[in-house]
């Protein structure tokens, strides 16, 4: 113990340790019946850490390139000890992370945690969600299997439909006119260098903002606490909430390990650019609602391509969604109602279209 104390004194003499950890010590978490929702962001962070660790492990054996990628993943899954487990955990954690990020986002909408002064926290969170989707899209291609090959073809083709910049964007993403080994090299670079760097920056920003503003209390609870302050309860972040969060992480790890061991992620067959697309080509589930919508839009709406209309509508909806907190103050409660309505509609739409997409095949 004395060694630890001495180390702390050593640091304290140089960095004023007490000042550094002071804010963390003072941090509290409001306690009310909706406190459970505070765990979701932390679980998402935990899954991201898992992704970084398993991703580094996969990098030890993975080789990008159209001739080697599939074989190297096959090698990881069949020859490397526990390779199947590492890859399964990486795939499962990726999907769970998107799921918890979405749940976190909707909880912020419905508990109105985005409201002043936390608009920038919301925006940084939205950037993180887009980065996570980018991780998913680029990582999906890396095993170079048939399903991923065609999903990437379709996905980048949709990007190409964006008016004006679409084509350039598509060629930039693909590294050429078509999805080839060049695309794989690019996606690999995005997946292991560009996106992790950006994500780390935004995670730090997001956490700093959460730390700076403290935890949001849902408006209903806040109003009650204002009228009767003796009801207001707070929990110390460290160690009380921190230990609870660790418990949540432990459960998440258990779920993750069980899923990876019982339902190992499939590899499929190697992509053949000159083979016809097999039936059942679909993107990852979190893109399904967009995919299904684009499938249902007629080829022509008035005189514009249906696809283009779909993309523009999704783009506009995404923009409005990003700016959601800024509608909160509008016209005496109308803005608030609009945000709630948008939240309910978005959630219902995503769930319904996702199920529809899987049912329709």
């Amino acid at each position, binding site marked *: 113990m004395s060694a630890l104390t001495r180390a702390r004194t050593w640091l304290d003499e140089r960095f004023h340790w007490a000042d550094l950890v002071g804010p963390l010590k003072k941090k509290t978490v409001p306690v009310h019946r909706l406190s459970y929702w505070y765990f979701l962001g932390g679980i998402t962070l935990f899954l991201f850490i898992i992704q970084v660790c398993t991703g580094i*492990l996969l990098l*030890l054996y993975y080789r990008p390139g159209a001739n080697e990628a599939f074989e190297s993943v096959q*090698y990881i899954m069949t*020859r*490397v*000890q*526990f*390779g199947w*487990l*590492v890859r399964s955990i990486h795939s499962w954690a990726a999907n769970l992370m998107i799921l918890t990020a979405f749940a976190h986002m909707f909880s912020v909408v419905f508990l109105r945690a985005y409201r002043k002064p936390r608009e920038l926290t919301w925006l940084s969170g939205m950037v993180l969600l887009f980065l996570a989707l980018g991780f998913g899209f680029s990582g999906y291609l890396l095993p170079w299997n048939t399903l991923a090959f065609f999903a990437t073809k379709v996905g980048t083709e949709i990007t190409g439909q964006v008016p004006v910049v679409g084509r350039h964007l598509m060629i930039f993403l693909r590294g050429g006119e078509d999805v080839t080994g060049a695309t794989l090299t690019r996606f690999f670079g995005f997946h292991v260098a560009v996106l992790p760097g950006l994500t780390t920056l935004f995670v730090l920003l997001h956490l700093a903002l959460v730390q700076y503003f403290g935890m949001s209390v849902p408006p209903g609870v806040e109003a009650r606490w204002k009228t009767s302050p003796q009801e207001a309860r707070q929990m110390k972040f460290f160690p009380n909430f921190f230990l609870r969060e660790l418990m949540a992480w*432990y459960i998440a*790890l258990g779920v993750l390990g069980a899923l990876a061991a019982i339902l190992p992620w499939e590899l499929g067959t190697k992509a053949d650019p000159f083979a016809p697309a097999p039936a059942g080509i679909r993107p990852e589930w979190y893109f399904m609602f967009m995919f299904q919508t684009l499938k249902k839009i007629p080829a022509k709406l008035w005189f514009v391509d249906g696809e283009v209309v779909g993309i523009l509508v999704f783009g506009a909806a995404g923009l409005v969604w990003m700016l959601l907190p800024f509608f909160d103050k509008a016209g005496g409660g109308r803005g608030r109602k609009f945000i709630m309505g948008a939240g309910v509609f978005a959630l219902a739409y995503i769930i319904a279209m996702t199920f529809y997409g899987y049912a329709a095949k």
Partner: protein
Amino acid sequence: MKTEEPGRIQPLRRRMVEMLLGGGLFASIVSAIYPVLRYLVPPPVADLGGDEIVAAKVGDLKPNSSKIVRFGTRPALLLMTSEGEYRALSAVCTHLSCTVQYRNDLHQVWCACHNGMYDLNGRNISGPPPRPLEAYQVHVRGDEIVISRKREA
């Protein structure tokens, strides 16, 4: 957590809980670290070369010249002396594993990395190499020059 008063014996139940918690945590950490350590060990590479390869055709080499060939997973040096005799040696320097070469001006085997010198039987004669190069057997079979590892009887 103010149970640690000096002189007071902790109740058995508390110790039990702490043991279960600690043991559970320890088991969890081990079960996470063990697969990672096993994962880090690279799977063995199959040595496809076997113990014998065809290194060259008769006539490929002139006297006082050499050739590096692949023998299993490592390079080997096949050389023809000025007298027209074939020799085959491991081409991996015994010092720090650089690939050696035949110097037709010196009639010796030389490692460029640290100026190690071997004679044509693979004996280390000057410079840092600590051991001789492994010598292989050379047979001429028809028009093929075959090199093989010396079998220890």
